[in-house]
């Protein structure tokens, strides 16, 4: 990943324009900001954004992806630059692996296992010990990705219940709901998941993998990056659940950070800014990587995982999905 560039987060409605072969962000109720184009790795737009052809061609030339989150904070889509790291060989190898039921089930199984492992790690090791065991048994016997997803769903449900016991009343989830999220807790989770998904898409685009060929989720769906859905499973708990518990524990999340109507909720502008800031800082946190022997930012973990999958498809190197090791 390029190091001299950063991700820009747009949290208020704005227009991106091209000026002097670089970017200028025009905001309604704040000053315009010039952004040097070489400083941008990608852009996550959490608010409405206007963009035009000349900007898109500039972004394309500099290989910058723009990810858009919708009004309710879930992932709405991306402006992706044309494919750069193409390699037919990798895509064929990936497709072959996905077509082979044994090989793809192997990957799907380890993804579900790692996801549950991470959830248990960040939520509560003791209370989730039994559900985790049940999950491991049922994924051992699972014959299809659907059965795996079912087992994961059961585990997730018990995990959400445990999460609820650690949250203040107003933030409790009461079961996961999406599109739109029913309450504040769900709005938060959806929002962070959307960001994780967007950042993972950027990471996958740096590898030659095809973002539509998946192992756990159905590759059949159109216009969705199923592979990114697969890979984001392991990382969601690291950001969504973990940050939610932490921010609730520190009393950082307040009721006024959410706009709540009957049966749906979303982050208000102040809340959005706070969450984006927290997630941005979290992406920059580093841990000592065992096999690389150096410290690695969380952000880079996403990329490393995508690389590991590439290597698995091409060379058959064992693929161990990301597990929190610290």
């Amino acid at each position, binding site marked *: 990943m390029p190091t001299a560039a950063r991700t820009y*987060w747009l949290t*208020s409605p704005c227009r991106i324009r091209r000026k*002097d072969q670089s970017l200028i962000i025009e905001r309604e109720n704040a000053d315009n900001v010039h952004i040097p184009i070489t400083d941008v790795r990608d852009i996550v737009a959490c608010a409405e954004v206007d963009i035009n052809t000349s900007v898109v061609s500039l972004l394309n030339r500099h290989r910058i992806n723009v990810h858009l989150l919708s009004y309710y904070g879930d992932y709405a889509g991306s402006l992706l630059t044309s494919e750069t790291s193409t390699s037919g060989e990798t895509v064929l190898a990936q497709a072959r692996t996905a077509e082979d039921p044994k090989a793809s089930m192997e990957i799907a199984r380890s993804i579900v296992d790692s996801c549950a492992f991470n959830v248990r790690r960040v939520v509560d090791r003791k209370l989730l010990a039994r559900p985790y065991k049940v999950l491991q048994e049922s994924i051992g016997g699972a014959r299809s990705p659907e059965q795996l997803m079912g087992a994961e769903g059961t585990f997730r449900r018990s995990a959400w219940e445990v999460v609820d016991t650690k949250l203040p009343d107003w933030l409790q989830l009461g079961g996961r709901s999406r599109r739109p999220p029913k309450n504040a807790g769900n709005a938060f989770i959806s929002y962070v998941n959307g960001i994780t998904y967007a950042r993972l898409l950027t990471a996958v685009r740096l590898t030659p993998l095809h973002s539509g060929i998946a192992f756990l989720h159905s590759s059949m769906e159109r216009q969705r990056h199923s592979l990114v859905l697969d890979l984001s499973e392991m990382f969601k708990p690291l950001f969504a659940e973990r940050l939610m518990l932490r921010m609730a524990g520190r009393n950082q999340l307040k009721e006024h950070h959410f706009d709540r109507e009957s049966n749906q909720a979303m982050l208000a502008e102040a809340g959005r800014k706070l969450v984006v800031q927290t997630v941005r800082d979290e992406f920059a946190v580093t841990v000592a990587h065992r096999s690389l022997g150096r410290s690695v930012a969380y952000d880079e973990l996403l990329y490393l995982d995508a690389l590991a999958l590439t290597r698995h498809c091409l060379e058959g190197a064992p693929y161990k999905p990301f597990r929190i090791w610290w």
Partner: protein
Amino acid sequence: MYVVVVYDTLAERNSRILRTCRQYLHHAQRSVFEGHLTEAQLRRFQADVETALDLTYDNVLVYTFPPGTVPQRLEWGAVEPAPSDIL
């Protein structure tokens, strides 16, 4: 590496230099820019800037700081806020 760029040019060429700098760095003051660049970007920047200069009259100073470090900056007066990546 972190770089600080200061330029002194004939007024009529200022805007040209300004535009070039904006592609690479954040505006800190009228003729001062700063930000992170890679070695390659710095070289490209140099090439870009040189085409816009009259080398017999103008000059550009570039201060570089070792990779991984950011110089401490003391500020007085009406300072432009440091560029943030959350807008």
